[in-house]
């Protein structure tokens, strides 16, 4: 009987590598039923290769970052001006 263990990684290392002794001979039963049971196992999501970026996309992203930075700095400058005004 094949015993499938239902969870991934649940086989312990020492179980998977039984010591082989030459004194034991392999026995194949001529009678009786051999059955196997397919127990569903959980699946992991697959490793993800990251797509490379095209030059255009990189440029777009860079421009957007720079634009955001510029806007932020300008807003900061505006705030400072407003703070200085009353004094």
């Amino acid at each position: 009987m094949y015993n499938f263990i239902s969870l991934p990684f649940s086989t312990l290392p020492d179980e998977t590598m039984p010591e082989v002794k030459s004194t034991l001979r392999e026995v194949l039963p001529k009678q009786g039923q051999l059955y196997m049971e397919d127990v569903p196992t959980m699946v992991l999501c697959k490793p993800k290769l990251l797509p490379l970026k095209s030059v255009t996309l990189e440029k777009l992203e860079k421009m957007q970052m720079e634009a955001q930075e510029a806007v932020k700095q300008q807003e900061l400058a505006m705030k400072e001006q407003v703070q200085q005004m009353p004094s």
Partner: protein
Amino acid sequence: MEVTMDPLFLAWSYFRRRKLQQCSDICSKILQDSPYDQAAWSLKTRALTEMVYIDEVDVDEEGIAEMILDESSIAQVARPGTSLRLPGTSQGGGPTPAVRPMTQSGRPITGFVRPSTQSGRPGTMEQAIKTPRTASTARPVTSASGRFIRLGTASMLTNPEGPFINLSRINLSKYSQKPSLSRTLFEYIFHHENDVKNALDLAALATEHAQFKDWWWKVQLGKCYYRLGLYREAEKQFRSALNHQEVVDTYLYLTKVYQRMDQPLTSLNLFKQGLDHFPGEVTLLTGIARIHEEMNNISSATEYYKEVLKQDNTHVEAIACIGSNHFYTDQPEIALRFYRRLLQMGVYNCQLYNNLGLCCFYAQQYDMTLSSFERALTLVANDEELADVWYNIGHVAVGIGDLVLAYQCFKLTLAFNNDHAEAYNNLAVLELRKGHIEQSKAFLQTAASLAPHMYEPNYNLSILCEKIGDLQSSYTAAQKSEDAFPEHADTQQLLKQLRQHFAAL
């Protein structure tokens, strides 16, 4: 005594060396002294355009509104193999989602992203609205509110004296009669100001002045119509331009129009016509390969990418796509050679090192694996990339059986990107192994709600519920898993079992 260079010549020199800011500054000075200097004016418009120039062929950002309120496609329910919108119709025998992860639009992930492939096309309104919430692939509501407008307004803000050219006060018909000025002015309006309506007016006047015989202006008119969403008009202009002069760019623009109208087969025919005129043209071949890839016909896409590499053996997109295809068809050692080639060519970024690390690991070259990932981690540009790299390191940890490390890696993934559905799913598997059923279930439910296009979380949830005896939930989850991946044999079997159970009741 110092001999000063003629400032205009110096500005030209700066322009040629792509020191655009200096060029623009010198031109501004010349213009202050003599405001009617046409050469300086024209040069300054060119410099400002070049600063923000993006290849229009590559730009394609479809907003939610265009997608949902789409009236240009011919058939709402297209036959298989004739539409870009039916991601499930694979005829190419490409890898199934069991091996190759999917993007949100239900296509296998590709080896290369361009502005138009960035987020794919979600099938329903619900999915379209949901997408921006998963931060990394935010989609504008319409393309008119998209990146271009944001860039345009930002360039205005940075000029405290206001814009260089005040478009509302400019006399377009005067400029349209001066061919040497009108072209630079058009490009400035189109690329720098992103004011498509004014650009269209100028192009219309100019093409009239050229007695409708200038192919360049027709192409520009087509570009404007395309941006405005008037695809049939754009098609007419590009066709007419092709009658005057065969240009590769015009073919590319025209095929873009057809792709937007969801007629990939017409695009393919057109590419082939283009190849008759320009045999072995790399951009046309790449275009064909991209369409095949988008139609999920990976094997013929790879054929065409190989054809591209025969013409240009440093084509990054082709190398990356063939590499990723080899990786997902169980040949990581060949994929490794392609990615190493990219590294030799001088591509140096986080994505490449991450891919190298994965390929090394699965090709059993363990010495390089961790150092590649370390490099990838030092080169990341943002949190999403960092999350993805940690996610892949988690896989390596699973592979060597170090489940504590794997657990930590997936946790780190979530720390950097809270919407990483794959990491939630894998954490759930690890949690269940530890015996934490409730925690595992919660993770799976989160993963399923974050990524309805993935079958794994629903399938896992179905198994888990079946085990704890909640057959009804198991059945609904299995059905969702079947929707995402109809050919999945294990899901089918589980459903069959459950139906038997229910019939027995």
